[in-house]
């Protein structure tokens, strides 16, 4: 419960944060602190240097352009949960942010920290993958954009390099007839997702013209459920069609030995009930689309 000694720097800008990262090899970035500080207290992380980026103004806030909802990485879960823009353009993101932890966590925790930490039981990575989001990254070699489906690579593993800094989370705004939803099987102790399913469907003339389903919690990193998506496109989304499509999710989850389980819910159980959560997410998304 008592962190080991570390050096602390506070960065005033993205540039300064980049310089500090270059200078202090192995440094950890501190934003809302809700991933890093518990690790420090348990001494599971013992960095020599912590760089506090929590007050960099240019990394905060939510803006909407024609086609993109841009969320600054230092935006808190609470801000995202209540944002009218997020609710309008990326409903599932607001819905998921409002279910993270408890109010104290949501008031301090940030989307950037959440995404960079890439806990497999986290909610936001799953949603971002379903919504076709991408992240902006500033690194030593300049800036680049990474699709979320490429960004999350495994348990607490991302495409971020040693000295990279997240600068934005960009979500395409929902189009006409598009609805999204997040269904969460919450762990009663940690409130992390035992299973989290994000779904986005677009209805055109009563039929599904596009579908994206992403599953988290049960897998090391969010996976897109291609089999489910294919089974939906071109269909009228009746309860039966949704249930049948959801039933196909098992094939998208990967090898049994890679599935996650714990003393609360085994991998086998999670796999068995995942279709139910897929169905529930889809039902709400379809209703919102219609």
């Amino acid at each position, binding site marked *: 419960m008592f962190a080991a*000694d570390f050096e602390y720097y506070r960065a005033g800008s993205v540039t300064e944060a980049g310089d500090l990262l270059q200078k202090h090899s192995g440094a950890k970035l501190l934003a809302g602190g809700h991933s890093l500080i518990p690790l420090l207290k348990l001494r599971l992380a013992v960095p020599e240097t912590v760089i506090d980026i929590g007050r960099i103004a240019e990394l905060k806030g939510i803006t909407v352009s024609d086609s993109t909802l841009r969320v600054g990485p230092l935006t808190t879960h609470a801000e995202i949960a209540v944002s009218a823009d997020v609710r309008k353009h990326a409903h599932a993101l607001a819905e998921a942010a409002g279910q993270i932890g408890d109010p104290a966590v949501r008031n301090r925790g940030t989307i950037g920290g959440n995404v960079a930490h890439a806990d497999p039981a986290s909610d936001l990575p799953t949603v971002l993958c379903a919504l076709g989001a991408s992240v902006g990254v500033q690194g030593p070699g300049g800036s680049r954009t990474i699709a979320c489906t490429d960004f999350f690579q495994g348990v607490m593993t991302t495409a971020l390099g040693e000295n990279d800094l997240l600068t934005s989370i960009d979500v395409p705004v929902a189009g006409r007839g598009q609805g999204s939803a997040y269904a969460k099987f919450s762990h009663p*102790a940690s409130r992390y997702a035992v299973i989290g399913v994000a779904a986005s469907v677009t209805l055109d003339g009563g039929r599904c013209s596009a579908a994206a389903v992403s599953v988290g919690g049960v897998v090391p990193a969010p996976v897109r459920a291609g089999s489910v998506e294919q089974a939906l496109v071109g269909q009228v989304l009746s309860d039966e069609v949704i249930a049948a499509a959801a039933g196909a999710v098992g094939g998208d989850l990967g090898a049994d030995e890679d599935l996650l389980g*714990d003393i*609360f819910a085994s991998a086998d*159980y999670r796999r*068995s*009930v995942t279709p139910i959560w897929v169905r529930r997410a889809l039902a709400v998304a379809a209703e919102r689309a219609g």
Partner: protein
Amino acid sequence: MATRIFGSGIRRREDPRLLTGTATYTDDITLPDMLHAAMLRSPYAHATITRIDTGKAAAAPGVVAVYTSADIEGALQPVPCAWLLPDSDLKVAGYPCIAKDVVRYTGDIVAVVVAENRYQAADALDLIEVDYEPLPTVSDPESAAKSGAPQLHSDIPGNQAFHWVVSGGDADTAFENAEVVVKERIRQQRLIPNAMEPRAAVAQYNQATGELTLWNTTQNPHIVRFLNSVVTGVPEDKCRVIAPEVGGGFGSKIPVYPGDFLTVFCAKTIGRPVKWTETRSEGYTATTHGRDHIQDVELAGTRDGKITGLRCTVHAGMGAYLSTAAPGIPTILHGLMLSGCYAIPAIKEDVYGIYTNTVPVEAYRGAGRPEATFMIERLVDLFATEIGMDPVDVRRKNFIPRFENGHDTVTGLTYDSGDYPAALTKALDHVGYAGLRKDQANALENNRYVGIGITSYVEICGLGPSQVAGAIGFQGGLWESAIVRFHPTGKVHVFIGASPHGQGEETTFAQIVADEIGVDPNDVKIFHGDTDTTPMGWGTYGSRTTAVGGAALALTVRKIRDKAKVIAAHLLEAAVADMEYENGTFFVKGSADKSKTIQDVALMAHLAWNMPEGVEAGLEASTFYDPPNFVFPYGTHVAVVEVDIETGQVNLTRYVALDDCGPQINPTIVAGQVHGGVVQGIGQALLEEAVYDENAQLISGSMLDYALPRADGLPDIEVLSTVTPSPHNPIGVKGIGEAGTIASTVTVYNAVMDALRPLGVKQVDMPFTPERVWRAIQEAKGS
């Protein structure tokens, strides 16, 4: 007439300081020159220590001392067990403050570091080198009792701490002649108390005077002082124990712990104050746990619903050592209550207390009675199912009829008073039982699985009398004491031996004083939790503080009232026999204008200008109240649940608690106790479980894994009551601190099993995690 203060739900006077963060807990105590201790705990559940090297730690920045087992040799005696259960072949294992040669659970202390600050102490822990040779482990009591199991203590064969039997009537014959027998295996899983405030101690020792002050988060500071004298050798007269604000205990702050005595040892040896506050992780791996029974129970009965006998065998996990009160919990507080609310003619129970490589088990809210209530109430439901009767009808058929002054059970207890049928009727009327059953049937037609659980419970609390304590091996008394002191202006100080720690008794005690002698409760200050300023008390546990301490207080105030009446009579030049008392005023019968208020009398008693012949100055009295019997609160709880059979998730949709704790001094506080108690019991049914792996490592050792109930997962708790005074208590009260927990676990359990009955599910271990429920459903479908 003014509203009587006894029975008024006035606000808790404790709350402003608690809610605004201005209360002082042990960890808030900071003394000049204070050092900080940290404990190195064994990472192995069972191992031989082959080498310890503290050199690097001792040389680390800020480190003042590092102590191991060799350093406390002769200076600290083993931690005592203070409930020496008779007729049970009790074997108390040596419980050293620092493990010597062998560690027996993952919280066992191996070394102590004392440093200038907590970070330096934590840094130094990492520098202590210990070599362990792992030994085989066992964490469940039934396996530990089998031959060939790993042995924890070389002088205690079969890991058996005790074998205790309760027997009344002829149970074996009852089973031979039974028309119906139902059997059940029940796991009362191990629970972790999780008091909001972690355990903490601050010790200050004056090497010149030999005087010790110990701030300690405890439910019973006088017992700490008593046992501290045994372990550390600091005599009681030179030891002051202060329990400042205590942030919950639930039983885990009854026992004395190695860490507390080590803190004293460090302060005494170094000559500087030392603070030790456990980390939350230590709260999981080193503070006592609760429950941990494996129960095999069978009930004998007739086809028409009469219970004729109960037989059970319990394997109770005690942990690696016997905690202070541990042996009495699964025996006296459990086995004697097996009859529940029913007239059962024959009961027999064998309880085996077993050592395992786990955290010692202690009292946990309800302490033995939830486990007893669960047994009988679960078996009643199974019996009802077996014979095709409504579980309510089976309860009614077997209830002990209403009694006002004593009912003897076959286990040897005398319940004080009760009207169990009335409690059941009122609770069922409130929920509309027939309608609920109809709703349940309708839901099932729509493929929704709704269940109803009903529990009628009676529990034993208000622990006393002392004579019984002696007979059952409790190494202490069970009376309570109070000193009441009036000041010249009529303000009152109460010094009470009991040590409330969140139950609101600063408020209810003031209400008792106000009710007995007509002062404003705001004119009454309650002192508790400091052994230098309060008379001896035996602690707050077993829902005894209001029933026993409150009675001591009421009797004390009555003594003052009697003295005040004599003084008032003298001042009014009237005969004492002609005096009457009402609402704080003494007056001459028939002439209300000739009167003296209690404040008038207090002033005159202090001035002492004109005292009656032979009456001492001052207005003060004390009482040591030893109750003639326990008290037995009871009630009926009802739970309604709906199970999502696709995922196995349980949704508790309604909870009704009807409790009879006698006259309620403060109904708001009673409701608060019921709420908290009910929720803790729901936690056991639905969420909580201490899980040890095959190496006896605690793998549910943090709040990330160990699920506690939270407000957003609970329905409003509907609180009802009936009022049946205890015939032997001076103010009629019974206890209410644990009743909720005692009733709620099995109420929710029975509700879930009722919901699953149409699916053919027969048994599920607690807690009802979604996976367990889902698997039980899959298995039932498959069979």
